[in-house]
Every structure is written in structure tokens, then in C-alpha cells.
């Protein structure tokens, strides 16, 4: 991922992913000795909801690609890294075979999507006309995210997706 980002000219994305991989490798090789917090971050649900709503309004109102967006994304990035670093000890209750099947099938679909997108991107770099002939997801979604309503929808979906992945609701 880091290599692909660097290759496509997204230097910051590549450096961020590269650093993250390096930290994870060091943590893995030292049996999880990197501790970012002395204890897990928790908060009442109304606080989580208020912060999320505030972030949502901020991201919708701030001009797209502006330094305000940069500030918001950096703050969100640091916060979710701290939240994600803490162990999430409880696993699912389904049979291991069902989990494995689901993991394999979702991985196949995810990798297929990435390869399709990467193929479209590589072919789209050949000329200006090719950019429209081989559209990436970014090119297709860009006009939608540029509109205020589209942006609000994407921000809400993205923030709720993050809340779900971080499991902040189920934390004690």
C-alpha cells in the first residue's frame, strides 16, 4: 500500500503508511511493547456522539482540500490510532469455519476491488482521455463529494463506519 501510494505520487499517503507499517513491525517483533496510552480511552456515549457530530459539521463546512480539512484529518488520525492501539479482547461467537470462510470471501472481494481500481488507475495515466476511459473510484465519486449534500452523506457514512470499526460503543 505504501509503495503503491509513493509510486502514484501521493508522497504523504506513502510516508504515513510506511511509518505505520514500521511501527507495527517493531511492535510485533517486540511482543507488543509499544504502549501509546497507560489506560484505554473511554467516554460516555453522549460525549462520543457530540464529538462525532462536531467533527461531522466541521468536515462538511470546511472547504474541501483546505488546511482546515488537513487539521481535522490529522486530529482524527491521531485519535483513532490511540483508540485502535488498545486491545479489543472479545472475539466473535461464530464457529471458526464460518469466520474463516467469511474472511477468505471478503478478502477475495477486497483484493479484486483493489486490483480493478489499481488497473484502472495505471491505464488512466496514459493520457487525459484515458482518465475518463478508465475511471477510478476517486474520479467517479469526486463530483458527488464536491456537492454539499454529497459531501454531508459521505462524511456521515464515513464517521459512522469509523465508530463501528473502533467498537467505541461496546467499550466499558
Amino acid at each position, binding site marked *: 500500500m505504501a509503495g503503491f501510494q509513493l509510486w*502514484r505520487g*501521493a508522497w504523504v*499517503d506513502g510516508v*504515513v*503508511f510506511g511509518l*505505520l507499517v514500521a511501527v*507495527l513491525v517493531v*511492535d*510485533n517483533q517486540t511482543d507488543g511493547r509499544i504502549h501509546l496510552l497507560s489506560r484505554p480511552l473511554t467516554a460516555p456515549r453522549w460525549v462520543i456522539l457530540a464529538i462525532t457530530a462536531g467533527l461531522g459539521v466541521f*468536515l462538511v463546512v470546511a472547504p*474541501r*482540500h483546505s488546511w482546515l*480539512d*488537513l487539521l*481535522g*484529518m490529522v486530529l*482524527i*488520525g491521531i485519535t*483513532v*490510532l490511540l*483508540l*485502535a*492501539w488498545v*486491545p*479489543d479482547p*472479545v*472475539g*466473535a*461467537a*461464530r*464457529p471458526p469455519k*464460518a*469466520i474463516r*470462510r*467469511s*474472511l477468505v*470471501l*471478503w478478502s477475495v*472481494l477486497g483484493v*479484486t*476491488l483493489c486490483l*480493478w*481500481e489499481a488497473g484502472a488507475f495505471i491505464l488512466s495515466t496514459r493520457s487525459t482521455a484515458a482518465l*475518463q*476511459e*478508465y*475511471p477510478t*473510484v*476517486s474520479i467517479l465519486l*469526486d463530483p458527488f*463529494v464536491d456537492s454539499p449534500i454529497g459531501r454531508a452523506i*459521505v*462524511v456521515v457514512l*464515513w464517521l459512522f*463506519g*469509523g465508530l*463501528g*470499526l*473502533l*467498537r467505541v460503543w461496546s467499550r466499558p
Partner: protein
Amino acid sequence: MTRLVVISGYLVILGAMIALEAYSRSKPDRVAPLDEMLTEVMTSRIVRVGIIAGWWWFGWHFFFAPTV
């Protein structure tokens, strides 16, 4: 024509994802639903941080970074 093929590819993959989730909801002991599978695999720090980083990058890419 090529554009249509590329977009169709995205839609087929999206459709397969929706179909897989629908199937797993109807037979969860055969194929675990996405959220339960994620709950299991995200007990690993590497996977958890990796998935959260992917989610964050989506926002970074669409809200701040210019489309390259």
C-alpha cells in the same frame, strides 16, 4: 465503451459484496456476517490498526488530499 466496462466491474464487485453479506445474514453459522468476522480478526493489533488506517485514509483521500 471502455468506461462502461470499468464501471460495470465496480458494480459487479459491489453487488457480490451485498450478495455475500445477505447470504451470511441468512446462514451466519456457515459464513459469518462481516461485522462478526471483523470483530474476530480485529482482536489482532496489526489487523485492527491496519483496517482503521484504511478507513482513515478513505477520509483523508476524499476530504483533504487532491485527486492524483
